[in-house]
């Protein structure tokens, strides 16, 4: 997927080396990658820093998980290292389960050395000798380049039996996993790596206490790990100075939908969505026609939330997005024009999540289906005026009983739709009409109301 250019002056962290070397070359272009600065952080960490110092640097930088939870990365590593265990693992989550999401895959294809180096640093920090990079089975290019990067790093002496002559072994394996949407969740991913049925486990204990094969495991998104070499090279204060002070750093955003050219761009956290849309190249419909055609943005993938034009001042940070009813998720932002119906789209997303649910918890298996059925009722006119209240109550129960992230966020599309586009829902339910002209709600309810 194409890289878009953002505003001049936006710092580039995880995509800093993208385009400076060709990862399609032999050994993922390790020679050119080294010339561009790859593996210098690794050499420096292994030869001059203690593992605790690496954790301290990452903790001071304020780096948070980019997989959706925004958990402080340094804390997670510290918790894993604190555990009394004979073996520890590091798992880089590059599965990218959201349909249509490409941000992580683009990153893995453009800078495989950056990711492998980040994984190596995490493994060094928590004292792991074995690490896995999990990618989706469809991401063949990304997997091939990551494998080439690992092999080249092994023959260059960065990885393998004797890392940089220190006598410490480190093996990194790239694993292609197939499976449904739910495999992107961390406990499910670990089960899939163990080649078991892909279902989530209870948390706590968190994977940092008991994870892969029952051992303490650090699970981080590839985007999170890709920032680690930059932090080690440039220092934690340089990273902490970027973006939102509470959640510093940059994040990858994928623009699609009503845009002239979809693509991926790296933005500092805390940037208002409006500024992102205005300042990003690629000839978005936004730039050409202005916001008139755009009705809403859908942030965060299938379990994300709708934000109306009036809420575009929302900043791109975990706290702000969750407060607004969305999630950062995979970082995808879909621009929705006036031809689409919010009610229909929210229902489709809920239906998708129900189809992809693993079926382990009853509130999820039945709850998401009932939510999708209520949504179908809105679209087809088979609904009662009390249905929105029923949906809210059901959503609260499903969220409270959540075992994994899918269940905890599955209600976001319908709830955020009802929050910001109440008029559109009311048109469907009470008046039996669809403002976008997409659904065909029968006018039965309206007739009953008139009588």
């Amino acid at each position, binding site marked *: 997927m194409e890289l878009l250019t953002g505003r001049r002056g936006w710092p580039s962290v995880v995509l800093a080396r993208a385009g400076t070397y060709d990862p399609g070359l032999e050994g993922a272009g390790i020679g050119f990658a080294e010339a561009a600065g790859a593996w210098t952080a690794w050499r420096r960490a292994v030869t001059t820093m203690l593992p605790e110092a690496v954790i301290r640097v990452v903790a001071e930088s304020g780096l948070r998980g980019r997989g959706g939870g925004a958990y402080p990365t340094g804390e997670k590593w510290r918790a894993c290292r604190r555990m009394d265990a004979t073996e520890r693992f590091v798992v880089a989550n590059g599965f990218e389960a959201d349909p249509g999401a490409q941000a992580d895959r683009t990153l893995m294809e453009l800078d495989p050395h950056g990711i492998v180096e980040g994984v190596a640093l995490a493994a060094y920090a928590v004292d792991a000798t074995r690490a896995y990079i999990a990618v989706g089975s469809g991401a063949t290019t990304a997997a091939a380049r990551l494998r080439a990067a690992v092999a080249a790093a092994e023959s260059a002496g960065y990885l393998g039996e004797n890392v940089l002559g220190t006598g410490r072994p480190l093996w990194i394996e790239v694993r292609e996993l197939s499976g449904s949407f739910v495999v992107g969740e961390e406990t499910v991913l670990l089960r899939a790596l163990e*080649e078991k*049925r892909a279902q989530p486990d209870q948390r706590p204990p968190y994977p940092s206490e008991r994870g892969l094969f029952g051992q303490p495991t650090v699970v981080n998104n590839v985007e999170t790990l890709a920032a680690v070499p930059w932090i080690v090279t440039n220092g934690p204060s340089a990273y902490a100075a970027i973006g939102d002070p509470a959640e510093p750093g940059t994040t990858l955003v994928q623009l*699609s939908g009503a845009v002239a050219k979809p693509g991926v761009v790296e933005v500092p956290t805390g940037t208002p969505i409006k500024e992102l849309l205005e300042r990003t190249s690629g000839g978005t419909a936004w730039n050409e026609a202005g916001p008139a055609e755009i009705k809403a943005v859908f942030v965060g993938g299938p379990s994300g939330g709708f934000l109306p034009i009036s809420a575009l001042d929302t900043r791109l940070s975990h706290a702000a997005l969750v407060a607004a009813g969305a999630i950062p998720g995979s970082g*995808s932002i879909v621009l929705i024009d006036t031809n689409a119906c919010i009610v229909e789209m929210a229902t489709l997303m809920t239906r998708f999540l129900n189809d992809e649910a693993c079926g382990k918890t*009853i509130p999820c298996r039945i709850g998401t289906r009932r939510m999708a059925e209520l949504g179908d009722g809105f679209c087809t006119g088979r609904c009662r005026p009390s249905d929105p209240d029923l949906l809210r109550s059901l959503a609260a129960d499903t969220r409270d009983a959540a075992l994994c992230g899918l269940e905890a966020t599955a209600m976001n599309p319908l709830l955020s739709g009802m929050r910001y586009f109440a008029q559109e829902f009311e048109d469907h339910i009470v008046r039996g009409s669809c403002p976008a002209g997409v659904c065909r709600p029968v006018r039965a309810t309206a007739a009953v109301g008139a009588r």
Partner: protein
Amino acid sequence: MRTDRVPGLGIVKGMMLTITRAFQPKVTVQYPEVVQPIAPRHRGRLLLLYDEFGTLKCETCFQCAAACPIECIDMGGVDTRDRYHVHWGPAEQYAERREESALRRSGRTVPDRTFDPFELIDLGPLDAVLAREDYNPRRAIQILEGAQEAYGHLPVAALQHIAHQTGAWYSELYGIATSYPHLRFEPPTGHVVAVCRCSTCAALGSGRILAAFRDHLGTDVGGVSPDGAVRLQQTDCRGESVGVPRVTVDGEALPRVSVEDAATIAAALRAHVAQGRPA
């Protein structure tokens, strides 16, 4: 020394809890006016319930089979989405007998399809796959992939044979096979229709097209049309669709599909396979 290795400590802990509870006062809680605190890890109890028509509300989720320590629970019937036939042999288990009698009492016919015996297969190729993977249940995915390569899909007989030979539970094998989309339970079909379900395509109307295909092919996503001609799947546009939702037939993307086109395409594909088959 780790404290969880001290012999007898677990029993002492358990008995301590029993003794403390035994001396606590017994009270009746006036539910729903008073709600008891619910433990944060509580996710409800597994119960087998009937609906108001006397039909079992079993979802064939295999939760109870997976939880049963001596593997005495097994599932019968077809799974929740009417996709997979998971039963073999006559009605033996409590659940099925109860369902049968419940149906009879309510004056309805008992569906025979569910209780059909499974089709027998030549187990030679499967034995070769099992020997190659060393009958190791931890290599279940490789064994299942090998079986699918040998038979084109996963017949019930193959799953049962794998369960016998490796010692893995049928429910566990079934669970693995259903959670990976590339493992199939139906014979391969002539044509594959795939629709992207991502948020971009949904905004462009892929949901309506998918609904039209669902109606005209008579199957849900992941299933095969009743005549076995066309499989309906989901695909991934990778966020690159602009203006047109991604719909593919046998891997080829179609330019622009309307809801009416979907009916025509579905009919054409089903007719094509019907002609190509020996009568």
